[in-house]
């Protein structure tokens, strides 16, 4: 694809702190290369803001910039992580846009993800859901032979696909109900599918769903927006598994 430069009109959410009301602020950036990543474009704008000294640079989350850490989180033109399917914001490149485009950039919006500053939101609700049961208890000692327990290939593949979730929160951002069920279902599935996850499966799903509800995420209405926007393309099949695991655990649980 041919390289080109572009001038863009940005509308970026600026909010000083979590108590500030915040608003969309207009910025113009020029000479943006089509080969820059979206975050590099924000870097260019931030350098300009620092050099001009009029405005503070825009606060945004990022870490690996390789699409695997789950830190970047921008809601771009009405879609989490922007227009490309299966892509995080850091891997979205400016060739997705044309010269003269207007781009609206907002933070994830959810009661459970309060804005800390500008485009940075507090996603520790996800950490607390994991702490509630998204793990397996392992005894210390010698490393066990990796193939000691036979696991069907299909199950291993499905568990691996679920484990691809990077916990970025795009599912919550995309969902009209701000539901975290795609995230929770991926974290429940990756363990529920494997023999190592079975001993704690019942308690895990009950505790993780209880924590999810407590954190203030909404309920799933099966619109499928989360699956369509997930940068790791986590399947809705996992939400069905979560529903199954939760219902059967609720019935079978003796507590």
């Amino acid at each position: 694809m041919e390289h080109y430069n572009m001038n863009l009109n940005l509308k970026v959410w600026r909010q000083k702190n979590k108590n500030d009301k915040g608003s969309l602020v207009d910025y113009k950036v020029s000479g943006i290369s089509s080969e820059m990543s979206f975050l590099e474009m924000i870097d260019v704008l931030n350098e300009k803001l620092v050099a001009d000294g009029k405005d503070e640079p825009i606060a945004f989350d990022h870490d690996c910039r390789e699409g695997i850490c789950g830190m970047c989180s921008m809601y771009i033109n009405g879609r989490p992580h922007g227009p490309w399917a299966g892509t995080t914001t850091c891997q979205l490149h400016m060739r997705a846009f044309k010269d003269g485009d207007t781009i609206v950039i907002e933070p994830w919006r959810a009661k459970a993800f309060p804005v800390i500053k500008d485009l940075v939101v507090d996603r520790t609700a996800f950490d607390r859901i994991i702490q509630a049961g998204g793990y397996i208890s392992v005894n210390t000692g010698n490393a066990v032979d990796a193939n000691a327990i036979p696991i069907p290939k299909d199950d291993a593949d499905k568990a691996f696909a679920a484990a691809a979730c990077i916990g970025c929160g795009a599912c919550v951002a995309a969902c009209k109900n701000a539901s975290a069920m795609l995230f929770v279902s991926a974290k429940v599935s990756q363990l529920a599918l494997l023999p190592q996850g079975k001993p704690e499966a019942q308690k895990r799903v009950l505790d993780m769903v209880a924590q999810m509800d407590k954190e203030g995420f909404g309920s799933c209405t099966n619109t499928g927006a989360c699956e369509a926007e997930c940068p790791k393309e986590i399947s809705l099949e996992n939400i069905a598994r979560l529903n199954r695991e939760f219902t059967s655990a609720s019935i079978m649980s003796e507590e």
Partner: protein
Amino acid sequence: MAKEAFFTSSIGRKLLVGLTGLFLISFLVVHVGINSTILINDNGETFNTAAYFMSHNWVIRVMEIGLLAGLLIHIAMTLKLYFDNKAKRPVAYAVIDGKANSKWYSRSMALLGTLLLIFLVLHMSDFWLHTKKAVYITHENENPFEEVKEAMTKWYILIPYLLGFFSLGFHLLHGFPSAFQTLGLNHKKYTPMINAAGTAFSVVVPGLFGAIALALYFGLVK
């Protein structure tokens, strides 16, 4: 998890919506089946026999109570979920590109459901109340077929009915497969079949209701 917590959990509530939804779908099968006898074009004889059976049978009376309970649970749960879910995003987005990731009717179930409820109130006051009065109070001879025919020849009744069937179709188009997903029934082999059955059901059932109404309006059935 304590026993009482299941139906107050997000998944438990969804399950109630899905189960009552499927129950209401099963009622639609009976309703459209009976109505379709109008298309036999036998001056309403079969339809009146079926309607008489439905209105003079204690088994059906018991089921009617169950149906009402199912409908009320469906409405109460979806309203609760709707307002709860709305509160989960206190600050709205400035721009939302909804069509990029989901179907409009899957995002508009509350609106479609409300339209359906308005239609239901209209529909019940047109026919159900009338039949109840005739059976239990006035003991007049009923001719449900003539009643339906008379109503459907009025454009101002026909149009809200057609709009009701339209809402029903799109409500089912999302609701039918969605109920199975909520029950946890998602399978590589069966989900495409469920989705196809759901689409067929959402077209055929409201389509038949609409065809009957239009046939009566245009005098194709006498």
